[in-house]
């Protein structure tokens, strides 16, 4: 369980997140949406502990994030951020192996089979020996996802849910791979794992989320099942566009 208690975050003197309280539970795929600059990524980074809140606190399974040991936390959750830049000539195998060493699966049974399996899940069969830098943006993003999946392990391990965090996982992907990645996240959550993602496409968000959180101006504008949240009034209010142009019928 992930609990945020009245967190505020200041960046460069400006309060970009104000008094946000949330409780996320495993088995419920939560998606954060909102316009540019609303504070979506800031919220996610505060929830994973990248940004220390200026007020309030975040608890993961009842323990404050600061009090978790880094290695233990890495076995319980994995984070896919937006950054994909790597300045050195890693092979795909080597990038994914970074996740393997950190996660649940452990280095002992980290055979080639495991990496081949996770590459198949992100539709990159046979890419092990390819150089990461020579891949397209979308392929790089899927390699990073494979790394994160390797770290994550099974949805539930020893009775505790493992959590998957995705910051705009579909940003540079074609439509087929957007579905594929969100299917993977969906499966993880349906099997009892925890899941939180930031998405831009409201239709994708509505299709995949159990729970939708709308962030606007550093505050929570709405929170609930997509059908209840995505009203015409809210879309006009938060995004400033006519709802009929955004949502599929």
């Amino acid at each position, binding site marked *: 369980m992930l609990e945020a208690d009245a967190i505020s975050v200041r960046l460069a003197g400006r309060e970009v997140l104000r008094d946000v309280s949330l409780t996320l539970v495993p088995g419920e795929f939560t998606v954060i949406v909102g316009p540019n600059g609303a504070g979506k990524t800031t919220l996610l980074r505060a929830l994973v502990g990248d940004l220390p809140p200026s007020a309030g606190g975040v608890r993961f399974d009842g323990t404050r994030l600061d009090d978790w040991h*880094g290695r233990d936390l890495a076995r319980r959750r994995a984070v896919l*951020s937006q950054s994909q830049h790597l*300045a*050195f000539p890693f092979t795909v195998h*080597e990038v994914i192996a970074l996740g393997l*060493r*950190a996660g649940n699966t452990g280095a002992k049974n980290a055979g080639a089979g495991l990496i081949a399996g996770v590459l198949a899940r992100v539709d990159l069969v046979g890419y*092990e020996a390819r150089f990461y830098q020579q891949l397209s943006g979308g392929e790089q993003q899927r390699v990073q996802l494979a790394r994160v999946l390797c*770290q994550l392990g099974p949805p539930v391990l020893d009775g505790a849910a493992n959590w998957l965090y995705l910051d705009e996982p579909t940003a540079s992907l074609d439509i087929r791979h957007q579905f594929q990645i969100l299917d993977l996240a969906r499966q993880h959550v349906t099997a009892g794992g925890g899941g939180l993602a930031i998405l831009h496409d409201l239709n994708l968000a509505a299709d995949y989320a159990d729970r939708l959180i709308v962030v606007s101006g550093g505050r929570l504008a709405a929170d609930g099942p997509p059908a209840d949240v995505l009203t015409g009034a809210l879309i006009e209010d938060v995004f400033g566009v006519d709802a009929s142009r955004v949502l599929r019928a």
Partner: protein
Amino acid sequence: MSLVATLSRAPGDRSGHAVLVAGVLVAVALVTAFLSLAVGPTGFTPLGALRALPGLFSADGAAGRTAEAMIVLDIRLPRTVLGLVVGAALAMSGAVMQGLFRNPLADPGLVGVTAGAGLAAVTVIVLGAGALGAVLGGLAFYALPLAAFAGGLVTTTLLYAIATRQGRTSVATMLLAGIAIAALAGAATGMLIFVSDDQQLRDFTFWTLGSLTGASWEKVWVASAFLVVVVAVLPTLSAGLDALLLGEGEARHLGIPVQLVKRLSVFAVAAAVGASVAVAGPIGFVGIVVPHLLRLVIGPRHAGLLPTSALLGAVLLVGADMVARTIVAPAELPIGIVTAILGAPFFLWLLLRQRSIVDL
């Protein structure tokens, strides 16, 4: 069988290459070291070197040695060992620094760390004759490498603080800040020249070009002590540096104690640079050429990169020293000139090839 097993790992897994390359480099290092004992202004005398070597283990010590044995054991041997140690330190300082700064252009010599260490060393030379020498007494010999270490520590920390924002390092900022730091340290070093006497001026020249001349066993021990410290922290560092290449946040999510890894890296860079600067002056480009060449063959994973860098750095520096002391014999070229002639064009090539990374 073992060779096949080593090379036939999973596709894309190059950890076997590192083992193989390390094995080859150990052999090359031994051969290079022997050649270095056999080469000198008196010509190439491998048989003489072979004859002299058993004398190292003789019970009489240095007493009953022939002139030939003395040249090999008392002059060339400490110089060769010093070359191996300094070369290993230089290459590792480059490899660690490139990992810490997440780009292949970081090199202690290029971004002012060597200049900072040199400034600290020169300060000790100037002050050492007066007040400092009186206070420290017999410890004065260690003051030089310790000062160089401290200078390296300050400059590396400063540079990292300037070049990193929100866990990401800007290559352009790093290079530009490095230029400024190097210029500042150079200016301060220049100021010290005005307040120094004749003897100190002669010592200065040594620091402007870099050289293995004047190698002694004392210098070998001092440099080795620093190198042992660096090697001791490497196992802790390598997994952390690998993950850090993804970014600080990503490394933290992988369970890496990021602050500890960064502190140890800065410490290792400063110790390696401090040791080499104190005993050999600034020798450029080894730290950038060696790790880059190895990454092409064995990949960027630090568990393989750091030890093989040490080996190739040692080979390269002893090789360069052989060139430096034979090419204009009986005079000697400063070794920094040799490494710059090899390294500077290499750096330009690297810059052109990776222009997108530098983002200028």
